[in-house]
């Protein structure tokens, strides 16, 4: 192997690694999208804002010198409770009105949280304090930071917990039943309102965790930080097949890797366009997503 090709492979490995770290974050946010969509067929535009709120709660807690392992669950709790509140006050009354009305309402909630954040917390980005000292490890030419390891580890742990929750607990069974058929689940005595609230809570808690991790990764949080990652996580959810939980993880990782390859080998200014280009291509070629099943519309 010539020196040039070996450098190419080291670079490729580095971009893949960065892509997986970035993709884990997209995956965490995408999980919430996909769970909420799976259960009430609503694209929850405000999901990116739950992630932002999680990041801010994490910021305040870490500024108050709480250790990372306590700040992370509390931040998850914070954004989860916000999501339950939003669901109770806004989404539940609008649920019966129709898809487009619900979508517009979700858009409104998203804008409301963004601009409330901007007015209450200030529009300027805030530095995120170092919760842990950052170290960089080298494997040959491959560079991996401690934060990247933490991101990947946390994501794996949370996804394992989610898997357990959905597949092996009673509430998980209720969630699957509600997502399969809401009315039938209701007839079987499942309190679907409670299940939907719980789904919002879990989804937003995962997004909140992603917010804290991203704050540590990029060292900055701001009220508008949820918009673009929120949209990208949605793309990830659609890419994997919206409503399918493993699909969200796959979609997030694919998107993160694709983005980092584009940044590495091409230009970084088109970075945000990649996600949307992927979205449009997948919608045209395979609208059900990579792991989704095709459904036909019936009259």
């Amino acid at each position, binding site marked *: 192997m010539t020196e040039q090709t070996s450098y190419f492979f080291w670079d490729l490995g580095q971009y893949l690694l960065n892509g997986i770290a970035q993709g884990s974050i997209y995956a965490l946010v995408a999980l919430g999208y996909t769970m909420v969509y799976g259960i009430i067929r609503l694209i929850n535009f405000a999901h990116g804002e739950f992630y932002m709120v999680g990041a801010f709660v994490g910021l305040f807690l870490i500024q108050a010198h709480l250790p990372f392992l306590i700040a992370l669950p509390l931040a998850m709790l914070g954004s989860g409770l916000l999501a339950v509140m939003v669901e109770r006050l806004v989404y539940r009354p609008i649920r019966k009105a129709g898809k487009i009305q619900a979508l517009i309402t979700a858009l409104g909630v998203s804008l409301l949280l963004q601009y409330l954040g901007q007015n209450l917390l200030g529009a300027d980005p805030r530095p995120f304090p170092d919760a842990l000292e950052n170290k960089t490890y080298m494997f040959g030419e491959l560079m991996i930071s401690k934060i990247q390891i933490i991101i990947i580890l946390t994501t794996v742990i949370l996804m394992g917990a989610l898997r357990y929750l959905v597949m092996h607990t009673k509430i998980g069974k209720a969630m699957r039943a509600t997502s399969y058929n809401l009315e039938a689940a209701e007839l079987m005595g499942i309190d679907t309102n409670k299940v939907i609230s719980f789904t919002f809570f879990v989804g937003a808690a995962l997004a909140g965790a992603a917010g804290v991790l991203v704050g540590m990764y990029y060292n900055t949080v701001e009220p508008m930080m949820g918009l673009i990652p929120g949209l990208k996580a949605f793309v990830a959810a659609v890419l994997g097949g919206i409503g399918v939980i493993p699909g969200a993880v796959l979609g997030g990782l694919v998107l993160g890797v694709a983005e980092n390859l584009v940044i590495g080998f091409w230009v970084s*200014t088109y970075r945000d366009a990649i996600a*949307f280009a992927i979205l449009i291509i997948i*919608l045209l070629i395979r609208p059900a997503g990579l792991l989704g099943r095709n459904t036909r519309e019936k009259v």
Partner: protein
Amino acid sequence: MDLVSYFGPLLQNAGVFIILALGLNLINGIAGQFSLGHAGFWAVGAYVGASYGAFFAPAFLPDFVNLLISNVLGIIAASIAGVLVGVPCLRLRGDYLAIATLGFGEIIRIIINNLDVVGGPRGFTNIPHWSNLFWIYLWVVLCIIMLANLLRGTHGRAIISIREDEIAAAAMGINTTKYKTLAFVIGAGMAGLAGSLFAHAQQFIHPSSFSFMWSVIILLMIILGGMGSMTGAIVGAVFLTFLPEFLRLCGETVSEWRMVIYSLLLILLMLLRPQGIFGKHEFNLKRLWPSKGGAK
């Protein structure tokens, strides 16, 4: 302060937004599709019109001829963009279509941000000042007449039938793809027209003036007025153009909370009166003073 210099620019903006809202109303309200990328077409029209004005316009032509050429170029460019976006995306329905158009709107903005010829992130300066109240409102009137005629004819009925029930419309022999695309392209073309008028009125445009937020504000205009109603679109556009000024009169703090107020307005409208002010109805003198045996 003298009234003309205060209200002039506001009225100009109101005219531009009326055209934008009418175009989006055709797509979202009348054809029943759901586009969230209207600002993208607006940007295409604005940048094409501005490029003509700044680089290509022959100086010997009178200003209004140049303005009309710029408008037509804006319409053509945005319509072409509309075909490129509409033909693949209109196969999608409802919320998927919304996200796909949102994606296209963002891609258009990112591309403009990366085009150095038109200033990229610095914005586009030195656009000749050609449009004024007269030309903007002439176009507003032309758009209203065009749309009113369209809706009363065969094509308009076909477009409305798609909103009411797409499957039934297809079963009645209506080429739904064709009419959805037609509505989408006309809406996009109107946004292009608005863009070109806007560029020549403002003389300075910037990629961030065409961000996703503006697509939402235009959407809010037609929701406020009532989706599917042209009168509603006009009222919504005028109201939301003047509201920020009114809020500014209420004081600095109120004006800072403008976007919070908008989003609350959007949520409350959806919860309390999802059909907007006018519903699907048009303003109609006969309805106000019903004569004996007249329209109900």
